[in-house]
């Protein structure tokens, strides 16, 4: 039987729900309950998340560089105002994402190539891109495609909007205090068929794992997020509690600083980076830390969520081989100086633990790495450093390697531009990237992808560690279909026995 | 007075033995004490420090600390053995018939309540009187103990009263329920002579009016001579002698009593010596004002020393007497610049002390030394005695070996054996420590020695030894001695001249004989008449 109030214990809630600026693990998982996008990923159809369906957009039509998008009619925002093309156009507008004083400037990367967005009638908008872009509908399933009510958004400003968000989703936000709680109530004006099965949801921030666990076991909470992998079995062992782990669309990784900054950076020598990759037994580490819930991608960018791009049998060029690693180290000028690894404390589950193991394994081949666990990214990004933690998300264009391979590494990306940049894209990579972006057919795109990946691996500016996973516990009797990193608690995703 | 009827006995100790807890100086504080207190009698208990006087009193009141084992023997009061009573029983059966007052009057009153409240409490606990009745009773009591303005005193807190007033409040409190027995443990030791005299008068009045039996503990033979009917002498936990006052004082039987009585200083003014050397101290127009209080207004000024001039010659002893707070200590501290005077000139051994810079002053200090009152606190507890004596010499550049030799010499001169140098202060008795202090001062061969109440804290017998020693070394070393005391008997014996201080001024200065027989000032006369037991002149016990 469905409860009157569904209570969920989470380890944290991001401080702002501004759709793009507030995009983070702890906000993305809750967005789906009150925000909606042009298109959405249908996890019921494919749990890996490669199926994109129209959502607030009813149809897409492309004519060369111009997409005409027909919006759904009769959709209401939580404040009772109808959603129109005006709102949709504003969502993707220059003003909001790309202007010098944009509201949410991060949206610019997600709408790269958009040159004009315009409402042409009450329910239709036109999007013009710089070059032909077949991927626009898929891109609009990202946070950049969350449709915001223009008038309200302009009235509140980004910060205000982030605190009192309004969307078109099945629930509306009635209370939000970031360190404490978010209360959602079913929205009567919701248009969809996937109606809310519980009238009210409460998301409680409970930072201590023991307290979350006790809460779920005792029935105070119906669900919890954030179970350390080692504890899954324990949590599952309690009566009336079930544990689900869900692969996310993001990979934890370590970036090598390939640039001569600091000037004596030994990692500018690619052989040393190869050695570092070959020195760690990532499969074993991932097995030890996560069991079977996730895996280590042996070949960069060869990820299972990419449908046709994914080649399950591909072998790594740099497999685990300490002997080879040692030999490579011998070839370089590396003299054992400590390599500094900046790590953000507690940001990626199990990262510090894995790091401790890796430091050991590197030490065994004569590479001296010193880990520095730091409080936040400001400190992590402060030079000098030789290694740095990061995670590469893969879902911007569902089923396509665009994000991890190009969006995050291209010459305009933070990774090549910011103060804390760690690499300079090679000629080969840039050339392949251009082909990749221009490609309209799968074959062209696949070929360009392979070239680009090879160019990247030539440099090896990072080592992918594992696909990130999340573990959730539920009271028995609750049937829930996870949707990647999103916790969709409505419609076909949630039912009660 | 052996003619009391048996039923006249109020309180009777029979074979009282008080075991000491843990590792005391000895196994039993009091051993086999048998003693009776009669109605209408003042019985003084005297004896050396630590002889068990206070413990006897406390066990009578059931106030021994929890760590003590139950004393053996009996303390009989109205047919009850007090030793066998619990606190509750005692309240019920004895109530206020047994009362006690203590040595430190101010500390014996709770600072938190008005004294009126505290005295009322006794009535509240033991009687059913109404509030108004209690109040009236308390006021009457205050009047009876001769407290001025009882209404005001009633409302006052202990800190607002003088020591003598506090002691009177304590007595009033003790008298509340008309006790048959009053135990007073050194009730006047903390008070100055004039106040002491008033309290003693009060005691006598009490006995007269109520027929109270008073057990009066003291070590002052003057007090004994003044008020006691009988005297009991204790030594190391045992009662060595008991008898009528006149008998015990004038014809002591027990060896210890004899020693004690012999040591009591006499009011024996002597003439000044004539063989004095050159002037060592010339102090002129010394003044010192203390300012206390908060920043800004409300400054409280005390003119502790007011335009005083003094001279002192080698081999001479100048006594400085006066009641408590008259500025004796402040003056002596000013002279050696332990306190900086506001004005005046000081010359010691030809050196102008008043204008010396710190470094020069340190250097000049060897010319003037001081011995403090309390030998227990005057030595660094963590420094070996030998080092303490040698320290001054080392400071003034005497080589180590020479200093050690002189230390040994001084120890011997003070009647201590050479091994004393290796021990710590707490391993010595009070008298021995004072000798060490004297040795430390003398090690620098000062021209001027100041003794600030240097024997007041000591037992009379020890006191006598120390005084003798001082006279002896002065003879040999010919230093000028400024002897500060409030004990006129001691001063009369020791000094060539005596200066009387009152409220920061020297009101009279002269040879003892002249001063005592024919005081020029009214104040001096008052001071003299307040000396307890002045009428009693102990015979030489030799």
């Amino acid at each position, binding site marked *: 039987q469905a409860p009157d109030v569904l209570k969920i214990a989470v380890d944290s809630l991001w401080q702002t729900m501004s759709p793009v600026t507030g995009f983070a693990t702890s906000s993305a998982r809750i967005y789906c309950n009150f925000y909606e996008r042009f298109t959405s990923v249908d996890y019921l159809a494919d749990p890996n998340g490669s199926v994109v369906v129209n959502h607030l957009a009813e149809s897409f039509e492309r004519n060369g560089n111009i997409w005409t998008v027909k919006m759904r009619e009769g959709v209401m925002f939580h404040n009772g105002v109808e959603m129109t093309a005006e709102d949709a156009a504003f969502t993707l507008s220059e003003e909001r994402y790309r202007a010098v004083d944009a509201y949410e400037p991060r949206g610019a990367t997600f709408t790269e190539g958009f040159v004009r967005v315009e409402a042409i009638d009450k329910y239709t908008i036109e999007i013009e891109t710089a070059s032909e872009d077949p991927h626009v509908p898929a891109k609009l399933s990202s946070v950049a495609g969350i449709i915001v009510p223009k008038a309200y958004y302009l009235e509140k400003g980004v910060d205000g909007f982030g605190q009192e968000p309004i969307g078109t989703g099945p629930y509306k936000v009635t209370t939000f205090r970031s360190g404490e709680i978010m209360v959602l109530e079913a929205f009567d004006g919701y248009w969809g068929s996937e109606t809310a099965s519980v009238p009210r949801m409460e998301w409680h*921030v409970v930072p201590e794992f*023991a307290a979350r666990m006790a*809460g779920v076991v005792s029935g*105070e909470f119906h669900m919890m997020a954030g179970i350390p992998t080692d504890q899954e079995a324990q949590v599952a062992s309690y009566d009336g509690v079930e544990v689900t782990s869900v692969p996310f669309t993001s990979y934890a990784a370590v970036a090598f600083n390939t640039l001569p900054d600091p000037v004596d950076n030994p990692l500018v020598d690619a052989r040393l980076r190869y050695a570092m990759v070959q020195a760690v037994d990532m499969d074993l580490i991932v097995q030890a830390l996560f069991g079977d819930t996730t895996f280590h991608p042996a070949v960069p960018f060869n990820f299972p969520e990419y449908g046709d791009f994914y080649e399950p049998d591909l072998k790594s060029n740099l497999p685990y081989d300490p002997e080879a690693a040692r030999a490579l180290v011998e070839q370089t000028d590396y003299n054992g100086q400590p390599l500094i690894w900046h790590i953000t404390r507690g940001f990626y589950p199990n990262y510090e633990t894995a790091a401790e193991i890796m430091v050991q394994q590197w030490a065994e081949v004569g590479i001296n790495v010193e880990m520095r666990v730091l409080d936040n990214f400001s*400190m992590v*990004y402060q030079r000098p450093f030789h290694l740095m933690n990061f995670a590469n998300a893969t879902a911007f264009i569902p089923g396509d390697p665009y994000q991890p391979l190009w969006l995050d590494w291209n010459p305009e990306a933070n990774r090549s531009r910011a103060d804390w940049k760690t690499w300079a894209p090679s000629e080969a990579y840039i050339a392949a990237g251009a082909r990749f972006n221009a490609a309209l057919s799968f074959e062209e795109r696949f070929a360009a992808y392979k070239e680009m990946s090879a160019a990247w691996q030539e440099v090896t500016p990072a080592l992918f560690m594992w696909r990130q996973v999340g573990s959730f516990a539920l009271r028995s009797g609750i049937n829930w279909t996870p949707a990647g990193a999103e916790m969709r608690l409505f419609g076909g995703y949630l039912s009660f026995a | 007075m052996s003619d009391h009827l048996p039923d006249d006995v109020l309180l009777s100790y029979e074979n009282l033995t008080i075991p000491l807890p843990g590792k005391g100086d000895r196994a039993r504080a009091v051993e086999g004490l048998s003693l009776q207190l009669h109605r209408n009698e003042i019985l003084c208990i005297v004896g050396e420090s630590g002889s068990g006087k206070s413990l006897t009193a406390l066990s009578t009141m059931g106030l021994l600390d929890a760590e003590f084992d139950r004393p053996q023997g009996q303390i009989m009061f109205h047919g009850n053995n007090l030793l066998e009573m619990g606190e509750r029983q005692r309240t019920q059966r004895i109530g206020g018939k047994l009362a006690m007052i203590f040595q430190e009057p101010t500390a014996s009153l709770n600072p938190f309540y008005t004294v009126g409240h505290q005295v009322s409490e006794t009535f509240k606990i033991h009687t059913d009187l109404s509030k108004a009745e209690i109040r009236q009773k308390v006021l009457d009591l205050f009047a009876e103990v001769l407290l001025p303005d009882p209404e005001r005193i009633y409302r006052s807190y202990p*800190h607002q009263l003088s020591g003598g007033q506090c002691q009177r409040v304590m007595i009033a409190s003790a008298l509340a329920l008309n006790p048959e027995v009053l135990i007073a443990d050194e009730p006047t030791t903390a008070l100055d002579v004039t106040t002491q005299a008033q309290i003693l008068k009060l005691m006598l009045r009490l006995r007269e009016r109520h027929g109270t039996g008073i057990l009066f503990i003291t070590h002052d033979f003057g007090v004994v001579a003044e008020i006691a009917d009988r005297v009991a002498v204790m030594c190391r936990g045992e009662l060595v002698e008991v008898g009528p006052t006149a008998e015990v004082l004038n014809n002591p039987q027990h060896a210890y009593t004899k020693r004690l009585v012999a040591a009591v200083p006499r009011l024996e003014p002597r003439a000044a010596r004539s063989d004095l050397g050159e002037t060592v101290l010339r102090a002129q127009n010394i003044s010192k004002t203390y300012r206390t209080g908060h920043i*800004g207004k409300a400054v409280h000024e005390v003119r502790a020393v007011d335009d005083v001039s003094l001279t002192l010659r080698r081999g001479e002893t100048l006594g400085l007497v006066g009641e408590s707070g008259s500025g004796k200590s402040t003056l002596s501290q000013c002279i050696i610049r332990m306190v900086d005077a506001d004005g005046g000139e000081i010359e010691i051994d030809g050196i102008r002390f008043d204008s010396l810079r710190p470094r020069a002053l340190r250097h000049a200090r060897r010319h003037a030394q001081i011995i403090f009152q309390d030998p227990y606190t005057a030595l660094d507890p963590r420094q070996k005695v030998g080092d303490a004596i040698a320290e001054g010499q080392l400071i003034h550049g005497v080589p180590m070996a020479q200093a050690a030799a002189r230390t040994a010499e001084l120890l011997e001169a003070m009647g201590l054996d050479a091994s004393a140098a290796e021990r710590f202060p707490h391993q010595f008795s009070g008298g021995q420590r004072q000798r060490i202090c004297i040795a430390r001062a003398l090690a620098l061969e000062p021209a001027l020695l100041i003794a600030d109440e240097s024997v007041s804290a000591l037992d009379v017998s020890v006191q006598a030894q120390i005084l003798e020693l001082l006279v002896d070394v002065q003879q040999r070393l010919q230093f000028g001695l400024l002897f500060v005391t409030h004990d006129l008997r001691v001063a009369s014996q020791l000094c060539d001249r005596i200066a009387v201080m009152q409220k920061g001024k020297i009101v009279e200065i002269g040879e003892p004989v002249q001063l005592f027989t024919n005081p020029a000032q009214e104040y001096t006369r008052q001071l003299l008449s307040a000396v307890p037991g002045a009428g009693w002149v102990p015979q030489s016990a030799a």
Partner: protein
Amino acid sequence: MTAEFWLVKIGRMALTIFIVLTFTFIALRTSFDPAQAMLGPDATQREIALFRDKWLLDRSIFEQYFVYIKNALTGDFGMSFRDGRPVTELIAERIPKTLALGAVSYLIAVLVGVPLGLLAALYRGSALDRLVMVFSVVWFALPNFFLGILMILLFSLTLQWLPSSGSSTALHFIMPAAALGLSLAAILARFTRSAMLEVQSKPYMRAAQAKGVPRWRRTLFHALPNAAIPLVTIMGLMLGNLVAGTVVVETVFAWPGVGRLLITAVSSKDMAVVQALVVLVAVSMVTANILVDLSYGLLDPRMRSRS
């Protein structure tokens, strides 16, 4: 007490708060740039530039300081970087929760600690005394977060008697207040005991006994008022421990108070919030100190009549 006394007190208070303001400002502004910390790892250059512009981080340090002090004087501690809400609002929202927890814990500390200390002093050397001292030293020696977690595992997970997190009902108070209050009670019990023993050795206690004042009355009406001054001092100082304990306990039990706010603000470099909280704590501590001073006047007749 005199007017000057208060003038000096208030002057010191103002100085303290000014120095705290300045210290936090310097510590926070000179350490480094909060933009990246606030915006997360994926923030773009432009986003960072906009952020810095918005929060005046590009201005000279003196200008920032001036603005900061000027605003602080009018009670405006600025906006939280994290969620763009006024800091005062954020804090006001959470203070009741913390005050409630703090008050309950403090009450537990006093109601448990003082009587235990009294009993221990009264029956010095007895089995009870030992028991109390064992309790106090044991409870003191356990880190209170560890205690909190053990309590959750026992009372929420295993026995399922008490809720493990949140603050909505009276039941929710039990564990956090116990974890916090009892560790303070342990300290207080020790101090009460030694203050009482100290007082009990005073001559006036013996005099009271000689008067026939019964034991309980001596303890409550003679000893306790005099022991109150050191106790009140300790209780004042214990507020510092209370603050420290609150930070930890609020985290363990997901208590939505200022302690948690502080932790989140500190770890996300939310300068305005940290600054305001530090100042808030300083002000309350200084106020508490003044209250303690005031209570001396009430407790000690010697102080009262000094003016």
